[in-house]
Structure formats: structure tokens, C-alpha cells
């Protein structure tokens, strides 16, 4: 019996839900009915067997990425590698850091290859690939704690923004973080780039050696984690305000470097009720009246 992905419309009758193993996609397209349908068909068709493609190279995908050479075959696997390669010389990173965004990008690409859509997104558990044509825009809600309800803020992305990918990384999601950020949301030109950069920035939001931070080797939690025995954050105890600022500052510094290098268009970093925003694209309207302006201002001008 062949394993089949789950393919269904969500109860609103508009959004398509695709799920296979750990991949869980929510998709919405806007356009003529026939185009939306063709797009959804193309998404479902491309999705079928995609997990198997990835798993065929899973061992290699879980190894630290080489900054230059790519031994991977699959188109999604190679996109994962390309997204993490800019970081591989200076950081520990595996292609798995970009898996969610790369899958989202692939599915969106398949949809656009099959249909003329005004607007579309593929949301892979918070890592989102976007498509926008003139006059269209996206309103994106930001959550600081994926394990809780409620939006922290919203931001708008318009067609003339270069942003076509959004990703969030942090210690509450399904994957582990080496840092202590509750959430780092990154806007980038592609979903795979956003995914990789969010991982890197979230890892940089850290207070190494701090006694209030509980860490545990990743492979004690998930035996086959690509992070091996590296310490991942399990809990963050009470921190002083200055410590929160220090940690956010470290993350924002990294985000600023990536912004200058053109690897991200913007980032919002969140740690224990404090927020830092780097770059202005997309977040311009609501970024500045931030919840905790003092930390934000100081951090963004590092």
C-alpha cells in the first residue's frame, strides 16, 4: 500500500491543507476559480512523493553543510543547501535548517508553473513562501509564542517589496534552537533563505553559560537530531532586563550583518516580552510603536 499525503480543503472551503509525515502545509491562492483549482492540483501533485525524495538524502541533509560543495541531488535538497551555504563557513548549520522554507518554495513554484495567480502563499508550519502581483498585499500576523494563542503584531507586505519568504525560529517551535529567543521572524527574498537566516539569528539570541538557562544535548531528546550532542535550550528562567537586552542585542547584531549582506530584508526578535526589529521592510508600519520601545531603539541601532 502506497503511503499517501493528506489532501483536503480546510473547513473554510478556501485553504488547501497538505500533510505528509512531519510536513504540514496550509495553502491559499487568489485568482480565477479555474486558476486556483489548477494551482491546488499542481500543489497536491508536486507534494505527493516529496517527502520520499527528501528522505532519500536524509543522512546527507543532516550533516553540516559544506560552504561550497553540494553533493545533494534533489531540487529541494539542493535549495536547502543553497540557503544554508552562506552561513556554513562560520557556523554549524545543516541543510535541515532550511527544510520547511525550501518545501514551501517548491510547492509555490509548482503552483505558479501551472496557474496564473494574483496572490498565493504556502505556509509550512510558519515558514511561508509568498507570491504577490501588482496591487496585492499580505497581512502577516506575528506571534511571539507559537505555543500560545494571540498575535503580537501584524505587518504588511506589498507587491513592490522584495520579500517573498517569511520564517520563524525559536525555542518553542517543533525544531530545537541553540539560542533562547522566543521567536525570531525573518523576512527574506525567498522562504528558504528566510528559514536558514531565522535559525542563525535565533541561535545568536543567547547568553552563553547563564545559570538560568536549561540546556540539553539535542540527541538526548531526539536520537537522530541533526544537531547531534549540541546543547539545545529547554527552559529559560528569570533574566534581568539588562540580560534580555544583551541577548537581543547579540541577535540583532547578527541580523544586521545578514541585512547588510543582502541575506534578509528584515527581522523581528522576541525574548521575554522584549522585541527588537532590524530592517524596515514590511514591518515599517507597526514596527516603531513597539511594545518595549526602549529596548528596540537601542538594539536596532547597534
Amino acid at each position: 500500500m502506497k503511503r499517501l499525503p493528506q489532501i483536503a480543503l480546510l473547513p473554510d472551503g478556501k485553504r488547501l491543507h497538505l500533510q505528509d509525515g512531519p510536513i504540514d502545509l496550509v495553502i491559499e491562492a487568489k485568482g480565477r476559480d479555474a486558476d486556483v483549482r489548477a494551482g491546488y492540483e499542481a500543489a497536491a501533485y508536486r507534494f505527493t512523493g516529496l517527502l520520499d525524495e527528501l528522505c532519500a538524502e536524509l543522512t546527507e541533509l543532516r550533516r553540516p553543510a559544506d560552504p561550497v560543495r553540494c553533493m545533494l541531488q534533489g531540487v529541494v535538497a539542493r535549495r536547502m543547501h543553497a540557503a544554508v551555504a552562506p552561513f556554513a563557513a562560520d557556523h554549524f548549520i545543516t541543510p535541515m535548517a532550511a527544510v520547511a522554507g525550501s518545501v514551501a518554495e517548491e510547492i509555490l513554484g509548482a503552483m505558479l508553473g501551472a496557474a496564473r495567480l494574483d496572490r498565493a502563499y504556502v505556509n509550512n508550519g510558519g515558514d511561508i513562501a509568498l507570491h504577490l502581483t501588482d496591487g496585492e498585499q499580505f497581512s502577516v500576523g506575528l506571534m511571539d509564542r507559537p505555543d500560545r494563542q494571540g498575535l503580537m503584531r501584524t505587518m504588511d507586505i506589498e507587491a513592490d517589496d522584495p520579500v517573498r519568504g517569511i520564517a520563524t525560529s525559536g525555542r518553542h517551535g517543533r525544531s530545537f534552537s541553540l539560542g533562547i529567543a522566543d521567536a525570531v521572524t525573518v523576512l527574506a527574498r525567498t522562504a528558504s533563505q528566510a528559514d536558514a537566516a531565522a535559525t542563525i539569528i535565533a541561535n545568536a539570541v543567547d547568553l552563553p553559560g547563564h545559570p538560568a538557562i536549561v540546556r540539553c544535548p539535542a540527541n538526548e531528546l531526539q536520537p537522530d537530531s541533526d544537531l547531534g550532542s549540541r546543547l539545545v535550550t529547554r527552559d529559560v528562567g528569570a533574566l534581568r532586563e539588562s540580560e534580555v537586552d544583551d541577548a537581543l542585542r547579540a541577535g540583532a547584531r547578527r541580523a544586521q550583518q545578514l541585512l547588510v549582506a543582502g541575506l534578509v530584508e528584515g527581522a523581528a526578535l522576541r525574548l521575554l516580552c522584549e522585541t527588537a526589529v532590524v530592517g524596515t521592510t514590511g514591518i515599517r508600519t507597526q514596527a516603531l510603536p513597539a511594545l518595549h520601545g526602549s529596548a528596540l531603539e537601542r538594539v536596532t541601532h547597534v
Partner: protein
Amino acid sequence: MTDATPAGGDKIRCDACPVMCYIKPGAAGACDRYANHDGELVRVDPHIVLEQTVSHGGRLVPFQAGGGDWDGKIVHEPNVFVTAIGAGTTYPDYKPAPFIVSSEIDGVDMVTVVTEGIFSYCGVKVKIDTDRYLGPETATVRAQGEAIGHVTTSEYGSQMLSLGGVHHLTGGSKKEGRVTCDALMDLSNCKSVELTIDGGATVVVQAGYPPIVNGVAEERMRVGCGSATIGMFAKQWHGKVDEVVVVDDHITGVLSEHQAGKLLDIPDTGIKMKGRRSTPGRYFQVAEPGTGWGGTKISDPLSVLGPFDKKEARPGLTMLMVSTTGEHAAYYVLDEALRPLETEMPLDLKLSVERIQENCEPALCTVLFMGGAGGSLRAGVTDNPVRLTRSVKDALTRVTSGGAPVYVWPGGGITFMVDVTQMPAGAFGYVPTPALVAPIEFTLRLSDYAALGGHMDHVRPLASLRDNTEFRPMPYIPGRRA
């Protein structure tokens, strides 16, 4: 059923998807859907809500071709149906079934009692679309050398097997029971199983796929026997060819001698057939059974003919020879010595051969699971089990299995049959008894449920299941699964 293999230490390896996560006790895999509970792989969601949503999964070919038999709707408003898969079973008997769910359908408050039944009295009926000889009636059918069932009476164009049953499950050796249980579960979960038949063939059976008989995959069912084919196509051949022979392992048909030819005033051709004449134009045993023309062993169709009769035959007489599936066909013209010489077939005859092919349905294996809901299962539904039986008989209660429609056999008890390809993937499991675990749901009006002594205090609104996130939407692929 997904199961896990011990992977050394206390972690287990999940095989629900190709990621094949190692999962430590108390932890979940990468998907958060499967977890390690005291060394056992469990679904984190206790039962499944089946969204009756058309999914094209498994229908990618017509989908890609731009339509075909695909109904054109990728999805529609999901009609949520709670199924018993993963509901678990409860003992002792009087404990209410795991889920008694109420939901409104057309304004009538409906109750669905969701449980997984343990079926000791169960088996599968396998229909194998082939005319090839699989073995004599009542011959023992074996899997891995163990007797698991027998060949039963054949149906039109198909051979039938009856497998499983309480005798093989629990009446024989331990190994016989285990092998029978495995084979039933695999067949019911649409996996392929190799069966050998005493004094007959080896056949690989998988629900929804063509049978593989002695290593050869069957492609099509014949359109009919040779005689039936003559009857069906005589008018289309009339005036285009002088003689037609439809070669078949069972009954070979001859147009000029057949009743259908006589009615069209088709003249005699002087043809001489080998084999045993049954009635005019119908011949048994023109050749030995095999994998050649029309299920015979021949590769040269002329080998079933004797010399033409000089009194009636004439040079230039034309003849089409074709098998009952249209897979083989040849066109002949008699020479001066009245010997048939193969010649290129005229276009309109080619079209008639294609028409035969077109009318042959793909050969498939189909598997019907058959089981009886015993007293204990019914007690989980109501205080008074026999009333459930009566309610089912009176059509007040609808029975489904994994959301799929069932046929309830008339008479006593609740013995039902279900096409396993209609059920969601992995619907069947087993217990070491050995017996199969299959989902079964009873749906009835809330008022009727109260009247038959239902466990009213355990009825939960459908919405409560959703809120508790105790559900997992499932693709529902009507009519096709594997």
C-alpha cells in the same frame, strides 16, 4: 497498521513515514503525531475524524492526463465523519464503546457509536479476475505453506477464494493462526500477498491491482467467451469478412456456424475446427490452457483449424481470427489451394478488434472483508445488545466500517462485508488471539439510540472531539485506496 521496531536501548523506530524517526520514551517523532509510550509506538491522536473529502491521491494518472474518471473536484466542503480507526477497544464488555458521538445531519440529531471490533469470526473473500486455472474447487489455499482458506465456486470471468475464518485463525496450529491473521490483515490493508493453491497455481493478490498468476500479470478480463463474443460482434463483422473465429480457452466461437451468423444469413465457409463441438459454432477444448491466444497455449491460431472443406470453401475467402480479449488477432485470405495466408488486416476489422479490447475490463483482485459483530462489541453500544441487531435489521441504524459502506448479511447477528479499498489506509490491526481488529461504526437517531438502551450519559457532541484536538483529518478516497 504502523508498527515500530525496537532500535536498541529504550528508543523505538517509527515507520509511519520515510523519515523513520528514532523516538525516546515519552517523546514524539518529528511530526508530533506518533509517540513512544512505554516502548510502544502510539498515535498521539486517540481516534480519527475522517473528512469525507475527495482526494486525488492514488489517482495521479488520470489527474495528470487532465481528467479521465476523476470527478473534477479536488476537494469540497468536508463532511466530517468520525470513524472507529484508532478508537481502541474496551473491556469488560459492558464498558461503553470509546466514542459515542452526536452530530446533526439534516437537522436530525444523529449518534455515531465508534469502536474498533475484535473479530475472531472474520475472513476475506477474494475475487480474482482471470480465466486462468488457479486450482480445483475446495483446494486448500496456502500462505507461507500454512493453510489459510480454500478455492470456492467461481464467478463469471473470475476465480474466487475464501480465506480466514475462525477455523484457520484459532482452530489449527499456532503458526497457522498467525500466518492466517497476517495474510488477512495484509489483504485488508491493501498489501500484496502471495498465495499457493494445492494442485494449482501461485497467485499474488493485492486489492485493486491485477492478479499475478504464476509470475504473469493478468491485464484484462475477456469480453466474454468466444461464443458470446461472436454474439456481441456478429453484426459489426457482417459484410466485412466471410468468417470469424474467436479463440478462447473455454468456448471458441465460429461466426458462420453460430446462431448469430445463421440469423444474418452468413453462408457456410467450409471451416473445420479442432476440439469438441458443443452446439453449432461453439467448440470446447480447441487447445490446452496456457498464456497464449485466448487463454490457450497456442501462438499460431491456425493450429486450431483443420483443412477447409473443398466443397464449400473458395479461394479469396477472408477470415478474421481473434482472441476473446482482442490482445491477439490475425487476418487471412484463402489461396488457390484453400490454404489461409496471413494478410494485412483491413482497417474496419482492426477497429472491431480494438472494440473488443475496449470492452475488456481491467483484471483486478478485489477483497471483501467479512466479519460478525459479536455480543460483546454490541454491548459497548447499548445495554441491550439484541436491540442493536434489530435496529440494524430495521434499517434504523446504519453500519459503516472506517466510514465505508457495508453490506449487512440478512439473518441473525450483524455479519457485514466491506470493500477494503473503500476504507482509509491502515484501517486494520490485529490482536495476538489471533484475531483482526477492524473499525465499525453504528449511526442512528439520538431518540432511537435512547430507545434501544444506549449509553446516553456517554454521548459527546462532535464539537467536543474537535475542541479536544482528539482528531486527525484523514484523506478519504472513495473507491480507491492503494
